[in-house]
């Protein structure tokens, strides 16, 4: 499925950052430093042999084409729903919260009953397999050392 999200690979696993426009997807990708950015706007999520993977797409956001030059994928380390704030803070999300947060951020060509039902099932599987948090972050500081502490 295609999710409105940015993704950054660190230690060979991807942090996926989702949220509506203005929540900080591109901002957090721009703070990646030497880490690999899979994309700043659109990430493909799919179940792989070793768990869910985040895959790069060519559909970049406000970060421009430089944010969509990578053609790669990585197992997902965690999924964060972003909120800009003055300080870092996090809250682990329940599976139903993950589905509710991700549902409006998934791109679908149409949302009829059958497709929506399948989307619910896919998101429930994702929520059961991937740890997820609400993440408040400062826009001037990379979250990487903070994220390392999450489990």
């Amino acid at each position, binding site marked *: 499925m295609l999710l409105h999200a940015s993704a950054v690979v660190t230690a060979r696993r991807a942090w996926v950052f989702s949220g509506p426009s203005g929540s900080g997807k591109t901002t957090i990708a721009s703070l990646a430093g030497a880490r690999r950015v899979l994309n700043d706007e659109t990430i493909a999520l799919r179940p792989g042999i070793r768990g869910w993977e985040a895959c790069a797409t060519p559909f970049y956001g406000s970060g421009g084409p430089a944010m969509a030059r990578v053609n790669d994928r990585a197992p997902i380390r965690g999924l964060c729903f972003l909120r800009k704030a003055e300080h870092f803070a996090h809250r682990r999300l329940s599976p*139903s919260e993950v589905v509710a947060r991700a549902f409006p951020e998934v791109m679908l060509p149409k*949302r*009829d*009953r059958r497709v*929506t039902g399948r989307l*619910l*099932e896919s998101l*429930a599987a994702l*929520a059961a397999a991937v740890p997820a948090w609400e993440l408040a972050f400062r826009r001037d500081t990379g979250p990487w050392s903070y994220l390392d502490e999450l489990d």
Partner: protein
Amino acid sequence: MNSTESFPLRKSVPWRTLDTEALVVDVKSGLLYPLNSVGARIWDLCDGGRNVDEIVGVIAAEFAAPEPTIRADAVEFIERLADAKLISIERRRKGEGR
């Protein structure tokens, strides 16, 4: 709402439970409604075979709260589901076939 003659029935919308909560989607609007554990249980009970009185009775037996509070909250919740067109309310007397 006449609670003995009102039989709530879920409409054919995508939904699923996760743990004790439920997620219900209104396909037309694209909105997803997260329901807490009590809401999810009421949703599950809206099968067209139980009237509102019976639904309140089940909830009162399963959740620790005064029955009048449960009745008021359950009726309001069922009315909100009906307003959102996620359920229909069938009017019939107990014992009458569907």
